[in-house]
């Protein structure tokens, strides 16, 4: 379990992280969302023991990053937002180097390297030099490096940046698999729709403050408590909006000049069907009728202002 308690980091007069707190359990995949300069990387670096917090702390399975950083390091796999590869070594040598550093027993090393290569789908590249790998493969190799010592927490800083769609899809599947293996995974990313796909928890950070934290659905529900339906009507959208306002399941209805009627709605699917029926029966020419569901991107844009430290 990871407990982050009032984590704060100051650089001179600048406060990069303003006392953030959250808890994560094994199997949680946490999407850490924020603009550049919001404090994501600083938070991740403090949890990974690379930066000392100004105040507050993070505790991983009972080990405190401030009091026992070595114990924390043994339990984390940190993947920064850059590759960090030695260019004169083969794939297996690179993994062997880190397996040695993490004190993986000599007898187990070969098996461990084979298994992480298999997990990251790099077995065929075992004897290749790291600089000969594609960007996506290098990214997977970095992830394989994080896994050689079987960490309980993975800190992945912008793991999908610069990857093509296929490599992203593969990485996404791999991260989801790590969550299923019971690891805590913290992923920072700008690609919000992808995070929503595989993260069960997200946190939105701006100017060092955690603005929202929790399951994706819950956060979306918080900013948009009711469902919103959108109907596009050829003529008389104002009249249509007025008619719909009288229906019991409609909380509010508004229209725009281009014929769009937005309906805040608190009913079930049958009530939703009745709205469309009513519009058609009353002679309105409906060209489209759909639900406008908020997503992580809407939440992010709604909660944040784009300001940086």
């Amino acid at each position: 379990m990871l407990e982050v308690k009032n984590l704060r980091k100051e650089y001179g007069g600048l406060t990069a992280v303003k006392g953030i707190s959250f808890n994560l359990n094994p199997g949680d995949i946490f999407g850490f969302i924020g603009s550049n300069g919001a404090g994501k990387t600083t938070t991740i670096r403090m949890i990974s023991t690379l930066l000392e917090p100004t105040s507050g702390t993070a505790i991983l399975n009972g080990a405190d990053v401030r009091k026992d950083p070595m114990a924390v390091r043994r339990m984390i796999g940190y993947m920064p937002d850059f590759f960090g590869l030695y260019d004169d070594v083969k794939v297996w040598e690179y993994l062997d180097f880190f397996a040695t550093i993490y004190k993986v027993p000599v007898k187990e090393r070969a098996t461990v390297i084979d298994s992480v290569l298999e997990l990251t789908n790099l077995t065929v590249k075992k004897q290749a030099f790291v600089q000969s790998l594609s960007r996506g493969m290098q990214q997977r190799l970095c992830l394989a490096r994080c896994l050689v010592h079987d960490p309980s927490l993975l800190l992945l800083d912008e793991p999908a940046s610069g990857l093509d769609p296929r490599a992203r899809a593969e990485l996404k599947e791999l991260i989801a698999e790590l969550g299923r293996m019971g690891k805590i995974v913290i992923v920072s990313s700008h690609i919000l729709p992808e995070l929503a796909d595989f993260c069960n928890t997200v946190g939105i950070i701006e100017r060092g403050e955690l603005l929202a934290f929790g399951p994706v659905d819950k956060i979306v529900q918080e900013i948009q408590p009711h469902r919103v339906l959108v109907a596009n009507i050829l003529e008389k959208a104002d009249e249509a909006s007025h008619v719909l306002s009288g229906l019991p399941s409609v909380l509010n209805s508004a229209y725009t000049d281009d014929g769009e009627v937005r309906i805040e709605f608190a009913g079930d699917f049958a009530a939703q069907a009745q709205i469309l029926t009513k519009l058609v029966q009353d002679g309105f020419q409906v060209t489209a009728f759909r639900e406008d569901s908020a997503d992580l991107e809407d939440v992010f844009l709604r909660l944040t202002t784009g300001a940086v430290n």
Partner: protein
Amino acid sequence: MKKRFRDLFIDNPMLVEMTRFRRRFLTVKGTQSANAAVLTMLLIIYAGFVLVVIQNCAVIHPIILVFLEITVLTIFAPMMLYGSIAGEREKRTWDLLLAAPVTKAQIVAGKFMGALGALAIVSLFFQVPILIAAIGYDEQKISWWKLIEAELVAFTFALDVCALTILFSARVKRGLMALGAVLGILVTGIAIIPLFLSSVGMASSTLDVPCYLHPYFVLTHLVERDPQSPSGIWGVPQILVYVALALVLLAWTENTLNFPENEVKFIPKGDKNA
């Protein structure tokens, strides 16, 4: 103390650096295939050098060869180590080491031990011609103890050069900056200062004081000293000072890596992402 020694020199996972040094400088396959040409050329030069020594061993004082050894080691050590820490930063692998369960002292010790192994190999190659010259030299009886002293002067001075290079590599952002700084210090200390002092009219006997730790001066005194006389102020004292200096420089390096915002100071310019 015993535990610290064990952590640094026995249970230190960073001793894998010795293997990395071997791969980088002695592997002749894959990306290191250029090493084959360099090593072949060096072996040819070495064979020629040994032949010259064999032919002229009667007139070559073995300590003269130690002069050459010091020169080679002094050039070789910075070349090997200038990127030891700065290079990790440039390749951005430094964070990976810092996030791993190794102490900064273990990292420094690992880098140093890696270089030590390579220096020992170079030094070993010099032992063959030195031994030939020591056996064949007939102008004066060679003291084996004096020869060992000269060898230790060469090797311990090389340790200082290694430690100095690692220190600079830890303190600067780019490896080449470390190389430039170390070579600058060495050229100044070994050549420019003695030349300047002698050019301003300082007598060779008074030069001994400012050049007390100068390895070439130490070797000159060892050559000139009566083989039967005790070591005195030249030889062993410098060896001890060199060893102590290497330890101080390594401790300083560790301390450099410990300054609190080390990572922040080395964030690339223009990278505003916190």
